[in-house]
């Protein structure tokens, strides 16, 4: 897979990357639109603005490869191939949801697609991914594990403990840090010295790579190398992608008016919309015609319509189900 770094990417792959990013964007947009109805009764941490990372990384993963994610996991789960219906139904608290209404937006899971679960405890997913990688190594099943987490999570002790262990054991795991510069409303400068998160990898003797997380091709190429390295038994890589969250930390609203983040900063990043930038690029390269784009858009919107309808017409769990699945 190493040749991927420079080789031309097939048109089909380019289009697929676009479709995945657009699916994430449109699903999150729809969640925003529907949220005011107060029928999705759970906190939603949206990833609008950060779609390229999920798409670019997961493009290299097989169905059986593992991903572990956080409170902000919709995009990762969609990119890993999870059914929109089961995500939507979980947001609506229905028994047809991926976690049978027990988990909500913060605890999406789909073992059949290599998504053993997502955790809302910051940093919690990082050692879990290393552990799954340990299992893969012991079993020799050839799977790769990916941990997605934020810049905030990189300060948790478990992050460094996991890097250490994964490096020592040469585990097939890739640590993907989505650096959106904020943890809730704390800017990175209040939490970390001005050193790249990717540079922390060097202390453990593993590669640390930083790239623009809004450029899906950059993500695709850097992730290709890291995942190939993991698959070939050469050990872990830490990838840091800079990006920006458009919505508030939680919920469908913007927090810019409220003064949580500088308006200019927000506007600068809006100009670097990962979906739009990529759309233009594909158009310029003649890979995607306006007509094709419209067709993709229509297809995704229809899938989302169906997912939302499915969710809203699904039954709620029965009160007695409270006691199921504890063990």
């Amino acid at each position, binding site marked *: 897979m190493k040749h991927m770094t420079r080789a031309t990417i097939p048109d089909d792959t380019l289009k697929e990357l676009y479709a995945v990013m657009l699916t994430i964007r449109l699903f999150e947009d729809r969640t925003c639109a529907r949220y005011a109805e107060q029928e999705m009764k759970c906190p939603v941490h949206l990833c609008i603005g950060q779609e390229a990372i999920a798409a670019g990384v997961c493009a290299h993963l097989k169905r059986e490869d593992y991903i572990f994610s956080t409170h902000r996991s919709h995009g990762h789960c969609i990119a890993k191939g999870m059914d929109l219906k089961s995500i939507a139904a979980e947001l609506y608290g229905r028994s047809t949801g991926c976690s049978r209404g027990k988990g*909500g937006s913060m605890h999406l899971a789909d073992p059949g697609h290599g998504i053993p679960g997502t955790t809302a405890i910051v940093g919690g997913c990082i050692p879990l991914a290393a552990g799954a990688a340990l299992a893969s190594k012991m079993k020799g099943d050839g799977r790769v594990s990916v941990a997605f987490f934020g810049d905030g999570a990189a300060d948790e002790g478990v992050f460094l403990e996991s890097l250490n262990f994964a490096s020592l054991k040469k585990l097939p795991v890739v640590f993907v840090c989505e650096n959106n510069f904020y943890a*809730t409303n704390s800017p990175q400068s209040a*939490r970390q010295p001005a050193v790249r998160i990717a540079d922390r990898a060097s202390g453990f003797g593993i590669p640390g790579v930083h790239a623009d997380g809004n450029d899906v091709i950059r993500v695709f190429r850097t992730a290709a190398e890291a995942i190939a390295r993991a698959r070939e038994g050469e050990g872990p890589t830490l990838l840091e992608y800079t990006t920006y969250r458009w919505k508030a930390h939680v919920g469908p609203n913007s927090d810019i008016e409220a003064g949580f983040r500088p308006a200019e900063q927000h506007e600068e990043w809006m100009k670097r919309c990962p979906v739009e930038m990529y759309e233009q690029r594909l158009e310029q390269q003649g890979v995607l015609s306006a007509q094709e784009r419209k067709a993709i858009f229509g297809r995704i919107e229809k899938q989302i319509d169906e997912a939302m309808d499915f969710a809203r017409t699904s039954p709620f769990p029965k009160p007695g189900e409270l006691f199921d699945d504890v063990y």
Partner: protein
Amino acid sequence: MPWTKIQADDSHTPVFFGGDERAREITYRNAIREALSQALMTDRNVFLIGEGIDDPGGVFGTTAGLKETFGDERVMDCAIAENGLTGVAIGAAIAGMRPVFVHMRVDFLPMCMDQIINHAAKWSYMTGGKVKVPLTIRAIIGRGWGSAAQHSQSLQALFAHIPGLKVIMPASPYDAKGLLLGSIAGDSPTICIEHRWLYDQKEEVPETPYMIHAGKGLVRRQGKDISIISTSYMVYESLRAASELEKEGISAEVVDLRSVLPMDEELIISSVMKTGRLIVADTGVSVCGVASEVAAIAAEQAFDSLKAPVRRICLPMTPTPASHVLERAYYPDHTAIVRAAREMTA
């Protein structure tokens, strides 16, 4: 240090300092904010630390504006690194500071268990009482809107199990202010567990600083047929239940424990001896919980007074579900207390 001038007082009456006991009606959130603000004002060794503590929202309003007043060295935003930073706070406390560590959710405390349990709780004892850890940790119980399994736990029993800690659970604005100030001024590591649903509660609260020491409960409502001993938000469900029961001719006494470690054994025993029946309503699970401890105290020390088996109204032994339908099945309310009381008095 102004705090050291205050005499510790173990009576029910709070210790006022300042003289002016004028009270105004303020919310629970503002009572907390006032306590923190007055602590920062009175003692230069007090500082606040927590992820998002200077956020415009101000930890549900409880720290709003404090950074602007006291600066970012004393109202310190920090990394999400709970265990390490709890150790840092303990170290600072050992060296003479009085830190207040603020967590948005109780669920983040398990991250700090090593430092709290193995270090903060033991330090005084291991040093023969020579070194104290005057650390206050605030943590909030979430509830509802799909907070789910990792954002709504009531883990007071985990801490109440550890010798060397104090665990307070103020239910009213007056207590929130007094208990927090008492804890910050005190010399023991104290976990203050607040319930998110209490933040809009209002009460008359004196403006002047005052302290309430951990370990004393309060009778919130007198009664003679049954004691409902409760914590935190469940105090309100208990009071609601008592009003319902009154209509049926059952006179319920509602006791607010206020502190679960130390626990006011005397008050528990005297109430149970008076009424002869005991319901315990806690925000956590019943198994090995605070309610179990209250029941054990009654069984050991007021056994002869009991006319009916003790009942615990607590969370079922499952993690918190997300779907609102399951949330409804999960949380017991005043009707569960009323039902239990009826059965016990039938």
